[in-house]
């Protein structure tokens, strides 16, 4: 507090006269009026400033003039009245400002609470939509947190993995599937038929450490790939057989014809006749084989090829020699 303030305060407190009863009543009335208006800071300030102006206009100049000598008793009385009014006006203004600030904060809280509720509703709707999408997917989808715990798995994932247990789902990918990579996992299926699952693991954007895992049953796809490879191989074998039979058939026809000519010539040499008979018999067997080959090529069946391959295993040569 400055020296001047002490000086003024002393002048007010050491006034020669007490405020008269009428002034006290007046200040009391103003106080009640100000309390009525204190719910609205603007209204309160308007009334306070008006009262200040009225009182300052009638306050003698010497009441505040430290340069002059001791103020007149009337000046002190009026100054005391002004200070009494000012004290309650200032206190009410501060309370009104505090109330306004509380109101402002309450409005902000209400606003942010409204936004929060809206955001929660939206999040709930998004969650429900996500659940709906996940349920509708035929592929298995699982979401894991940074510690590897399964946060969510759709019905397809549980069916494909053959378990409802989240820990078992977590073990499914634990160690076997690289981060941001994929792997095939064989699992026992119903009836002992093994199934192959393609497990793809990807990091979730915006959530470090967590991952989304897709499970796809690739058993049938792998089977289809194997079948296609088998059919391609079969086609190649059949093509080779077709070419071979065609290429063998021409010289074989010549060979059989010559053998039959030799037999018809009756050379008188029994060894020639026997050799010609053996050549003819072997040629006829080769011709039968080529016909069978042609039939196999025509049918295009795997089992026929397999049978043929069994038949084509080393056969004893005519006369018991190989």
């Amino acid at each position: 507090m400055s020296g001047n303030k002490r000086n003024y305060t002393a002048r007010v407190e050491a006034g020669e006269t007490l405020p008269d009863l009428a002034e006290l009543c007046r200040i009391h009335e103003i106080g009640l009026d100000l309390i009525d208006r204190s719910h609205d800071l603007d209204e309160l300030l308007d009334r306070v400033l008006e009262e200040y102006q009225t009182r300052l206009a009638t306050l003698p100049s010497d009441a505040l003039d430290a340069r002059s000598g001791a103020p007149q008793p009337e000046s002190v009385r009026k100054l005391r009245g002004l200070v009494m009014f000012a004290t309650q006006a200032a206190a009410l203004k501060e309370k009104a400002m505090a109330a306004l600030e509380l109101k402002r904060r309450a409005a902000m809280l209400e606003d942010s609470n409204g936004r929060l509720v809206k955001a929660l509703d939206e999040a709930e709707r998004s969650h429900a939509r996500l659940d709906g999408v996940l349920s509708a997917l035929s592929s298995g989808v699982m979401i894991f947190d940074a510690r590897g715990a399964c946060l969510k798995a759709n019905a397809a994932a549980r069916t494909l993995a053959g378990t409802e247990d989240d820990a078992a789902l977590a073990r499914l990918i634990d160690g076997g599937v690289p981060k941001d990579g994929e792997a095939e996992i064989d699992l026992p299926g119903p009836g002992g038929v093994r199934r192959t699952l393609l497990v793809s693991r990807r990091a979730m954007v915006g959530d470090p450490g967590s991952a989304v895992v897709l499970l796809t049953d690739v058993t049938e796809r792998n089977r289809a790939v194997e079948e296609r490879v088998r059919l391609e191989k079969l086609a190649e074998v059949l093509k080779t057989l077709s070419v071979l039979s065609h290429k063998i058939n021409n010289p074989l026809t010549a060979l059989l014809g010559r053998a039959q000519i030799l037999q018809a010539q009756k050379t008188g040499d029994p060894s020639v006749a026997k050799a010609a008979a053996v050549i003819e018999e072997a040629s006829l067997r080769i011709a039968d084989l080529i016909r069978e080959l042609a039939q196999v090529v025509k049918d295009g069946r795997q089992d026929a090829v397999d049978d043929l391959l069994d038949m084509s295993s080393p056969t004893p040569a005519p006369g018991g020699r190989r």
Partner: protein
Amino acid sequence: MRVHVVREGETARLFVSGCDAIDNANAPEVKAEALRLLGEASDVVVDLSGVDFLDSAGVGVLVGLFKNARLRGGRARFCGLTPGVRSVLELIQLDRIFEIYDDVATAARS
């Protein structure tokens, strides 16, 4: 006595020079000149660093400036209070009614 008004953006800065006090002798003149120069300005910073003393008429000028800014939907801020001015405003509690800042820059920023 001279009243200066400097406009800085939306804010009008008012400064009184050439007199130590705003008192009964010059208060009507100061008030009339200030209101004339401020015109329609509603955002006012009143720099009192050039005033050493106020009497009731001088305080009445400040209340009038404060009220005028409020009537125009704006605000008046006071700064640069000398000890003499501060003690008067504190005595009649106007330091709790007015917006008071240490200097012009702080008042303009607020």
